[in-house]
């Protein structure tokens, strides 16, 4: 039986098409449809219910040491009020999850984790922390929405003056019509945007307030369908596709978030041993057809990789995919063939992200 987010009833009223996802019933789209919702985020603004995401607090005087040990990124040089992306690995170098760390203070961190991995992450962290540190899963107490798109700042500005300025920074205790909010300048769309959380009791009121305020700015509610096409265009990995317990973050081309020069962290040796004989790349499909996940990729008739996600890109107007490909065939411009249900479709390896917003 799937759980409902605190905003579930509103999605039903708004005629969201509800589907099970990571243990929750969430709207895959509203009546507007995936492409309209996708375009709203690129051109005006979209509002997503992301209350399903997990939130785990790690606090105590040994919190920083544990963060550096548990995660592949480094947190030593991080300031309060900043956010940082990081994979979390098993000793073999496979990826347990990818998450965002919010540094509240040197002794307190909030981890935003994938809904599907929440319990696994909590157990893993609990089982691996050392010293004076406490691990708390606060996911069930919180509602969270993502306000994404070029108009997101203007909409938020109507409701508060207290808006995080820098990309990957956040503010606590932001009052939005009396609702106590945690506001971060983060997102999963490649667009200007904010993620806003509050207590679950205030979730519906926050949702309604944002939708009402945003109406004049072209804000519409958006579902999981658009969330997926947006993150794909932005070249962002999705756990279970580009990342898994068998895929190392280096294979997923997340080098920027893996600090191999750190003294030690869980998975360091495993990642080194595993190497990166395959790498995550982008594919621009040049033929007719859409390559989704698990399609074989060939160069000169030889299998060199496998797609991990793919869709029709509404912004670019052609199909795109991501794939894990043998490192010898990852050069931009390499012509490949993707096998889609028995049909061979030509494609070209290209740089990620597919889409970068114009600032």
């Amino acid at each position, binding site marked *: 039986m799937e759980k409902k987010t605190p905003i579930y009833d509103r999605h039903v009223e708004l005629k969201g098409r509800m589907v099970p996802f990571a243990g929750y019933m969430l709207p*895959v*789209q509203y009546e507007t*449809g*995936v*492409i*309209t919702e996708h375009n709203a985020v690129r051109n005006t603004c979209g509002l997503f219910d992301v209350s399903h995401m997990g939130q785990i607090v790690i606090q105590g005087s040994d919190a920083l040491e544990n963060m550096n040990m548990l995660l592949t990124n480094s947190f030593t040089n991080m300031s309060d009020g900043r956010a940082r992306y990081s994979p979390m690995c098993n000793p073999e170098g496979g990826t347990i999850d990818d998450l965002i760390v919010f540094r509240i203070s040197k002794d307190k961190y909030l981890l935003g984790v994938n809904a599907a991995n929440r319990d696994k992450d909590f157990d893993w962290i609990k089982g691996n922390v050392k010293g004076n540190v406490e691990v708390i899963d606060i996911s069930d107490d919180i509602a969270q929405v993502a306000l994404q798109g070029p108009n997101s700042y203007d909409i938020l500005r109507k409701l508060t003056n207290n808006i995080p300025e820098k990309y990957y920074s956040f503010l606590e205790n932001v009052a939005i019509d009396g609702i106590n909010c945690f506001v971060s300048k983060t997102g999963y769309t490649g667009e200007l945007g904010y993620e806003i959380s509050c207590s679950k009791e205030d979730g519906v009121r926050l949702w309604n307030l944002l939708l009402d305020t945003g109406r004049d700015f072209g804000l519409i509610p958006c579902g999981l*369908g658009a969330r*997926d*096409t947006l993150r794909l265009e932005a070249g962002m990995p999705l756990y279970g596709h580009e990342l898994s317990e068998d895929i190392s973050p280096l294979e997923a081309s997340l080098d920027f978030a893996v600090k191999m020069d750190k003294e030690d962290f869980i998975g360091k040796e495993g990642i080194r041993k595993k190497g990166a004989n395959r790498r995550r790349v982008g594919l621009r499909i040049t033929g*007719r*057809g*859409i390559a*989704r996940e698990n399609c074989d990729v060939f160069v000169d008739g030889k299998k060199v990789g496998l797609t991990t996600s793919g*869709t*029709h890109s*509404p912004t670019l107007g052609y*199909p795109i995919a991501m794939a894990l490909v043998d490192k010898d065939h990852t050069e931009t411009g390499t012509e490949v063939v993707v096998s889609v*249900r028995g*049909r061979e479709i030509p494609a070209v390896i290209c740089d990620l992200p597919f889409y970068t917003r114009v600032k």
Partner: protein
Amino acid sequence: MKGKRFYLKTHEWVEFIDEKTARIGISDFAQQELGDIVFVNLPEVGDDVVAGEGFAEVESVKSISEVYSPVTGVVKSVNEKLQDNPELVNEDAYDAWFVEVGDISAKEELLTEEEYNEFLESEN
């Protein structure tokens, strides 16, 4: 039969041009269920189609669906417009035919429009 539209429970429509020739597409209900259609994979002229078997695929942003043939015959022409403008299926599902089939030798059990609408209601 001529000029009238019939349906399959799998949400395809067929419209007979004469006894041996018909156009095939997907129903308005089907296009609504699929959402934004972004790709239609059509057979080629000269391909055989078989009543009750898949002959095309229609892809929305999120999903792929097989399209089943209401008749057995040979593909006489395909709607090339759908290759570049698959969204035509969303705009008018009954104008956006997929293929024209000739030499029809067999048919699936076809529903009239009324029967199809009743079927949709009973399913909901």
